[in-house]
Each structure stands twice: as C-alpha cells, then as structure tokens.
C-alpha cells in the first residue's frame, strides 16, 4: 500500500462518538469530493514541477496578489529588490528564493513607505554627486530589468496560478467515468495512465480519452461512452478504452448497448456501428444487448448474454469456425488450448459473476469482530479455533474472550469494541509453542453482488500471522509490524467472495515457549467491517 494512512475502518472509530457528534461527523465524511476540483488541484500542483524552480516563488507572489485583490492586503505593495543584506539571505514568509539569485519579495505598507527618509536629502548632505548619478543609473537599470521580469513572470503566473485561466479545449473523449465503488487502481490507488502514459487521477466524471488504460485492483467502475454504451469494470481487471468499446486484457466486465443492429447479425455488418470488446483471444461484438465478458490469466475468454445477442469471434489461429451468435442466457468461450470456440451451453457461467448495476447503494456485510460486545471469559459464537493439522471439526472449538490478556498486548480501550480471543478463557497461554492455530469466522452474502464485496479490518496477533484465507483461498497478507500484538495491521479483501456463506480464516503461530515454561502465548484480535453492492432487481 503506497499510502500507509489510507482509509481504514471508519466504523470502529465512529463507535467512539455518540449522539449528535457522531451524526455530524457522518454528515461531514459523507460529503463527496468534486472530481473536477481534484483534477484542477492536481494539474496546478503538477505545473509547479513542470516549470523551473522560480515557479514556486511566482505562485507565492500570485498568492499575495490574490489576497491583495481580495482586499485583505489592499494597502500593501509588493516590490522585488536584490538581497538587501548583501550577504546571506534568510527567506521567510515575506521572502522567496528565485533560483540561484536571491531576490527578496518585500511587502511594505504604503504609509510606511511614504515615511521613509528622503534619498535626495541624504546624498545632498554627505555624498559626492557622482555617487548619486551612478546610483540613479543603476536604479533605472534595475527598474527596467524588474519591469521586464515582472511582465514575463506575470504571464507565466497567470498560467500557473489560474488567475486568468486560459481556456484549454478538452481532448476528444471516448466517454467518462460515471460511477466508482471501492475502486483501487493499480500503481498508486487513484490514478491511471492516459493514452500518452501520463498518470492522472481518476474519479467520477473523469473524462476517458481513447487509449486510456485502466488497471483496476479492486472495486467496480462504470464507464459511459459517448455512444451511450456502458461498461461496468470489475476489479481486478486491465482494460484499455477505445472509441466505442475497448480491450480487456484480463478481468471481468459487463457491457450494455441498447442500439439494436438491423440485418443479418453477422460480425462484418455489426462491427461497423456496434460496441466491441476485444480480448487477447476473441472479439465480442454487441448486437444490441447486455452481456458479460471475462478473460482469465490464461487468456481464456468467456462471454455470457443477459439479453439480446452478441457475436463471439475467435482470434486464435486455426479457429475458422470460431464465430458464434449467442442469445440470452447463453455463454460461449474461446479456449486458447485448442484454438476453437467452445460449444454453446446454456447458463454454463454463473451470471452473478457479472455486476449489472452499479450505484451508490452499498449494504454492510454482517461480519463479526473478535469479542465484539462480549465480556471477558465468554465464548465468542462467531469465531472458532482449531489447531492446524487436526481433522476438521474434531478439535474445533469456540474461541473465548481472554479474561486476562497478556500485559504486552494492545490493551482494550475505547477506540474499538473488539477484544482478544484465544483458545482458553482463563489464560492466553497454550501448551503448544510454535504451533499453528486457525481462527475462523463466517458471514453471509445474501443480497449483495459478490464481485463488489470488500472486507476491511485491522488485526493484532500473538505471535505471528501466517496466512489469511477467504473461502479456502489465500488472500494478500497485511503488512505486519515488528510487534504485531501491539500495533494494528490494516488489511482489505476485495476478491474471492461467493454468494451465500463465506469463510474467513487466520492462521496464527504461537510464540516460542516462555523461559522455564512449556507454555506459549496465542491470541487474535480483529476489527472487521465490510460492504457490498446491493443486488438489483432481476439479478
């Protein structure tokens, strides 16, 4: 994770608040951030680095100029002078370094300037006239140079600060992002490469130019094309946007294109005006329909039709007969292994794999943090523990809230309702040093689309977390601190969910035996929360 301070677990944190304060915080954090504003901020920030080093100083000047315009500094004037101290410069709030040459931005109130002693009087009293003439010439030269600099700087200032933003035409776009749910984009979490390889933030309403590549690690993103076609991309997926369609390198998407194509339905006529998804092994041409496409890591392309028709063509050599027109509830597949389009079979693919609707409504997943709401010594009905290697069920037992947690463990406090659980209620000690125990909890996904589910949490363990599994499959491990029993490790799971009951397991290795004792420590404390896109009608 690039940002160690990324969003973690708002639910346990908000549990610290009550009443109106909690409601107010919820109101604040629910306010959406304008994607257009993010783009403006990012663009201007980037421009800081795109120019030479004095851009920063110019921006500072622009800031001052803005304030002056706003009235707060109306009696002040900004002048640029050479370093008045003649030696080392100490840039402060009112001084800015312009590259190698030190120039000070001195802000003087107008009345103070008027009260300055007269230069003429000084020279007429003590200095030779030649000094005065020289100073005068130097002064004219400085003023001329300063005016030249100011003119050119202000031109750039306007570009950098946006005081007078110049209209820049929007690039030709293929479409825009219309919705995002728990999206995490590869590389840095929020941005993706545009057509020329430049990273930029992707947010709702971001324009997508043709050629934009989207690497979605998790979540779901809806793209609306200028033609009106829609694509819902489900992470993990890699997709390149085309004018009316795109290239799905790997992952899943659902396409929706309502324009019915008249004619025979053959691929040649359809491709002229249709929505087309290309994959490494196939071309899926929409004939006015709603369909799903999935490309696995081996390049196998599967298409399922919800309604209408699609034409599935194999791109594999030798696959001359590889063209099928699929109707509703039919699925086709291009297998790289044999270079042929597989036979059409009715509902051979789980339609639930494809997200058909994306919106703002997500529903919480009913998951259970360890010891949540339980008193010390009580059994936790939502968590089981078993020693690895034991036959499943033989020694499986309910985990219990540890009555007297180890003094080295992160203490139970107001910040979270979770508690430490272990195998025994009376003690965190077990008689099996260095052994692996599996803690297991289960939760149900009934009304949500499994592909959009996300679990987030924080974990503490003693002694060491060895694996995390969802439905028997390993999921990415959280980064573990040096002392995992004292410092929470955040984690998130965004794939591997199934409809119905899901099982989440944590393999925890016990500590080495304590000195002079056969006993070792075993403990787990997990904060869990999650959400899933609510299943729409007919899904």
């Amino acid at each position, binding site marked *: 994770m690039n940002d160690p301070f990324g969003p*973690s677990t708002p639910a346990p944190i908000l549990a610290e608040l009550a009443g109106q304060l909690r409601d107010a915080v919820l109101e604040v954090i629910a306010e959406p951030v304008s994607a257009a504003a*993010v783009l403006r901020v990012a663009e201007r*920030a980037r421009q800081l680095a795109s120019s030479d080093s004095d851009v920063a100083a110019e921006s500072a000047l622009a800031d001052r100029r803005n304030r002056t315009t706003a009235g707060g500094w109306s009696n002040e004037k900004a002048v640029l002078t050479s370093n008045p101290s003649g030696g080392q410069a100490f840039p402060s709030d009112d001084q800015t370094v312009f590259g190698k040459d030190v120039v000070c931005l001195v802000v003087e109130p107008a009345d103070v300037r008027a009260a300055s002693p007269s230069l003429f009087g000084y020279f007429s009293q003590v200095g030779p006239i030649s000094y005065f003439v020289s100073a005068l010439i130097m002064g004219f030269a400085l003023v001329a140079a300063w005016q030249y600099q100011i003119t050119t700087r202000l031109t750039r200032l306007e570009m950098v600060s946006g005081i007078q933003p110049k209209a820049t035409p929007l690039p030709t776009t293929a479409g825009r992002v219309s919705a995002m749910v728990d999206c995490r984009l590869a590389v840095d979490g929020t941005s993706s490469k545009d057509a020329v390889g430049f990273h930029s933030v992707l947010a709702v309403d971001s324009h997508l130019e043709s050629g934009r590549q989207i690497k979605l690690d998790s979540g779901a993103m809806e793209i609306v094309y200028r033609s009106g076609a829609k694509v819902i991309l489900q992470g993990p997926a890699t997709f390149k946007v085309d004018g009316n369609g795109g290239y799905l390198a790997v992952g899943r998407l659902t396409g929706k294109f309502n324009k019915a194509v008249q004619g025979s339905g053959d691929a040649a006529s359809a491709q002229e005006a249709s929505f087309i998804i290309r994959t490494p092994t196939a071309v899926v041409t929409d004939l006015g329909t709603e369909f799903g496409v999935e490309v696995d890591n081996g390049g196998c392309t599967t298409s399922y039709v919800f309604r209408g028709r699609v034409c599935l063509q194999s791109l594999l050599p030798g696959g001359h007969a590889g063209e099928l027109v699929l109707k509703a509830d039919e699925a086709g597949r291009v297998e790289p292994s044999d270079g042929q389009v597989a036979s059409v079979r009715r509902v051979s693919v789980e339609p639930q794999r494809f997200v058909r609707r994306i919106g703002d409504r997500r529903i919480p997943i009913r998951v259970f943090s360890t010891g949540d709401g339980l008193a010390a010594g009580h059994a936790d009905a939502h968590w089981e523990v078993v020693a690895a290697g034991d036959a499943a069920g033989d020694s499986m037992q309910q985990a219990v809230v540890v009555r007297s947690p180890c003094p080295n463990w992160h203490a139970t406090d107001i910040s979270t309702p979770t508690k430490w659980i272990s195998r025994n209620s009376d003690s965190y000690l077990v008689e099996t040093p260095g052994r692996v125990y599996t803690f297991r909890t289960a939760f149900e996904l009934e009304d949500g689309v499994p592909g959009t589910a996300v679990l987030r949490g924080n974990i503490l363990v003693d002694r060491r977390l060895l694996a995390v599994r969802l439905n028997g499959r390993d999921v990415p491990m959280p980064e573990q601190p040096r002392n995992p029993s004292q410092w929470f490790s955040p984690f998130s799971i965004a794939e591997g969910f199934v409809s119905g009951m899901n099982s989440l397991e944590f393999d925890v290795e016990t500590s080495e035996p304590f000195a002079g004792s056969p006993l070792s420590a075993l403990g787990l404390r997990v904060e869990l929360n999650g959400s899933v896109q609510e299943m729409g009608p007919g899904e």
Partner: protein
Amino acid sequence: MMSWDKAVADHATIVLRVAQRILGMGPDAEDIAQEVFLEAFQLRQKEEVHNWGGLLRVMATRRALNRLRDRRRTEPLSHVELPSGDSGPYENAVAGELAERLREAVAELPDGQATVFSLRYFENLSYEQIAEVLHIEVIAVGSALYKARAKLQMLLKIGIGGAKS
C-alpha cells in the same frame, strides 16, 4: 524518492478531501489544497519527504483550520437551531446543517485538539498514526481526543452561542 507527479497523483484527492471536510465544499478547500501543494513542493526542494500521506494531511488540516478560524472572524455564524431528541421529519430536514455546526464547533477548539480530532474522525487515522505525524505521544492523542469530544458534544448540544455566553 517519490516523484512529484506521483505524490500529486497519490494525494490530490486526499488533500482536497481533508480541506473540504474542515471547510466544507467551496473555493476555500480548493484554495487550501493548492497552498498545501505549493508548501510541499518548496519543502521537497529542501529535504526528502518520507511520508507524503502524513505530511500532506497535517499540512492540509492545519491550514484548513486556520482558514476556518479566519472565516469565523469575518463571517457571522449561522444560527441553525438543532433539533433535540429522537429523529423525526424535522431532524431529517436539517441533517445537512449538522456538518456546518460541527465545523463551527471545531473552530472553537484549541489548535491541538482540533487537529487531532480532524485527523482521527475526518481522516480515520489511528492513535499511533496521529502521534507519528504530529510527533507527540500516543497518550497525548488520547487525551486531546477526550477533551475534544467532550467540548464538541457540549457545543453541539447547547449551541456555539450558548457556549460562548
């Protein structure tokens, strides 16, 4: 060393979000976000930044809180009567006003408490993360949060004007 473009791409949303949660939607938040990036850019030229996320959050939080207080000095408070008791149609109707009242109340907090409160509840940082970015002890974070919560509860309950009087 993280490139400037990457730092911007990574954190533009975060910085704007921090500012917006403190100042509300509007030009002020965007203004603060740009100031933060300018300050960060200048800082980056002087020294290597190891934790962009923490640094930018703190800078944005502090600048936004300052702007919030400046705004309060120049603009009259909106006196929105908050409903009391259980939820009802009226409460739902003015629910959006709660956010504004909270911002006004946060502006009343001492600087340290306001910063810690904002990082904790607007940005979901843990006690340890807040302690790390503010260079204070974890226990000080807990203490500041306790005081901030108590004062905010009171301010929201009796109203800002009531607290002052």
